[in-house]
């Protein structure tokens, strides 16, 4: 009964959306903004990756919010899970030697990869978020492989805060010097397609990478703690 009603309701919504979609043909260029970014993006931001220039420069306020949301999720998760009394530490069965050694071997490599992705966000696909996730996956691996090892919470918090603060301070510096706009790209754009280009974009992306990495690590940390 309930599923029938649900189906009816959903099909009504589907009908409505279909009517609306009728005016949005698929695969046809339709936005002037997108074209503007593709045409002007390189000059205005100095980033070869237009998505990055949109994310970190044109729509950087969204990105600030996005980082904040992740931050909230990490804190919220901590707040929700931390309310329980800490249980007795159970004896943890250590991982096998192969796994342990493999993890220790891979860990720095993954970190390096994450750093690479973060730093090259304005040149190649990727960026702070992706890099941060890769970094966090390194820690996840460490949790799985080297059981009992924990990342210091203080460290996570510090990196998290500093990452966020760097983002904001860069923005405020922009407000102060760069034509009085918050988050304006006040550094020199540099040469396209080189590592040191695109003004503040790499700086922000590194900050984001650190922040996202530490936040996700924090989330993993909390969940691992809960599962123990």
């Amino acid at each position, binding site marked *: 009964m309930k599923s029938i009603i649900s189906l009816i309701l959903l099909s009504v919504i589907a009908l409505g959306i279909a009517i609306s979609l009728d*005016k*949005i043909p698929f695969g046809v260029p339709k936005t002037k903004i997108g074209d503007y970014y593709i045409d002007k993006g390189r000059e205005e931001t100095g980033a070869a990756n237009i998505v990055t220039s949109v994310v970190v420069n044109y729509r950087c306020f969204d990105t600030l919010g996005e980082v904040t949301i992740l931050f909230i999720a990490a804190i919220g998760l901590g707040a929700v899970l931390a309310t329980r009394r800490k249980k007795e530490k159970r004896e943890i069965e250590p991982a096998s030697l192969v796994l342990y050694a493999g993890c220790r071997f891979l860990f720095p490599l993954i970190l390096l990869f994450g750093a690479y992705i973060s730093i090259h966000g304005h040149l190649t696909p990727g960026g702070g978020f992706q890099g941060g996730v890769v970094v966090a996956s390194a820690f996840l691996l460490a949790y799985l492989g080297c059981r009992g090892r924990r990342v210091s919470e203080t460290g996570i*918090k510090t990196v998290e805060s500093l990452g966020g603060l760097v983002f904001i301070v860069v923005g405020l510096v922009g407000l102060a010097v760069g034509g009085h706009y918050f988050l304006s790209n006040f550094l020199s754009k540099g040469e396209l397609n080189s590592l040191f280009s695109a003004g503040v974009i790499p700086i922000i992306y590194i900050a984001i990478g650190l922040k996202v990495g530490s936040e996700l690590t924090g989330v993993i940390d909390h969940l691992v703690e809960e599962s123990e």
Partner: protein
Amino acid sequence: MVSPVLLIVVPLGLAFAIPLFGFISKRIVKYIPIAAFAFNLAVALLLIPEVLKHPIVVRIGGFPPPFGINLVAGPVGVLFSVLIAVAGLLVAIYALTYIKEGSKEKYHMLYLLLLTGATGVVLTGDIFNLFVFFEILCISSYALVAYIGDRAGIESAIKYLIQGAVGSSFLLIGIGLLYGLFGTLNMADLAQHIESASPISVFVPMVLIITGLGIEAAIFPLNAWLPDAHSSAPSSISAILSGIAIEVGLYAVVRVIFTIFGVSSIFMFLVFLGILTLLIGEMCAFSQKNIKRMLAYSSIGQIGLIVFAMAMATSLAVTGGLFQLVSHTLGKSLLFLAVGYMIYRSGSMEISSLEGMGKRMPLTSLAFTIGAFSIVGLPPFVGFPSKFLIVQAALAKEAVLFTGLIGLVLLGTVIEGAYFFRVVQALYFKKGNGDSERNEAPVTGLIPMFIFVTLIIVIGIYPKLLTDVLNSAASEFLNRIDYIRSVIG
């Protein structure tokens, strides 16, 4: 000149910095929200005279509006910023001693971020950015509802989260459709182009966006999360959720309808929806035995009244609606703060357990009484001029329908009066069981309450303090052409 962007960035930065402050001293952390909102209040007040002349448009990153994100600090935005800063500041003072359990650092961070999100929503001029700030607001409220971590809190939080997530998905679909149709995300730019598309294809994204935002705004069929969440959260958070969060949701709905879509035909529907929300909220509140649930349902009723006023869409009505919104923020925050310590002292949320509180906590009870009277709309409190304006706007329509509807509104007020007066009676005129030692709320609790009381009385007696700002805010809502022109140029 101060930039409105500071209203968002400074609290955000302070929130990010809280863990670092925490390393210096644990005690310092709880003063940071106070500092942040004191700053915000000062900035917002400084901005008022300027925005009354013309709205300030801030380009983030220096890109011209359709291409970059921009903030629009018009009268509406600054009015809401002031409101958020006032409520945020006072509730932060309240929380100094009220929040005792759990990780205080996390509480203060989430609290700061919640209100930052709210400020962002009211200031932004970009619909996707609005979505992002909206999510900041929502997600931090999910976390804060669950902050105590008891059964009720967790249950309410998960229900709130599920409904909120469905809503934000709808919102995002709507934004995607709008982007597909018009290729822009700037609200002013969208508003400019909205007439170029066929009405039906615009209608679907409008419905989706209204639904998505309406969940936070607690419009009738979408408000099932509200009584649970408001009653289970810590009282300081209930005050913010009731006083700020739903108002901001409502702002978003109104902004989208008035400015982006500019449709007038849906207003009639919203009028009825508002009345329905009002009546259902009041009726549910009437039969509650739990004081916080009662207040939560009363918030639904008040929201219904505001929706009703806004949907009448005359200058007078929108002014009245905004006034009602301000008075609801002041009144309901005060009520939740007062109730917070009463519950804390009596250990139960049942109305019957609050009997005799007039003797145990005379000042808190006084604050509660004044808040209740203000919500009901009795003079000389702030609820009266706002209700007066709404009734006036409805009668100025000179339609039998609106006269009938305003009759229903006032019927709702009678029900509202009935349950609030019942609580007031219980506070003062029923013998409490248990000890009747005088045990007043601490000073940090009383100071914000009595600042609210002062505001309620002062604005109630001298509404002119607000009416100028409210009038220009109303005209900002109603004149979309001016809005578009001020943003796009």
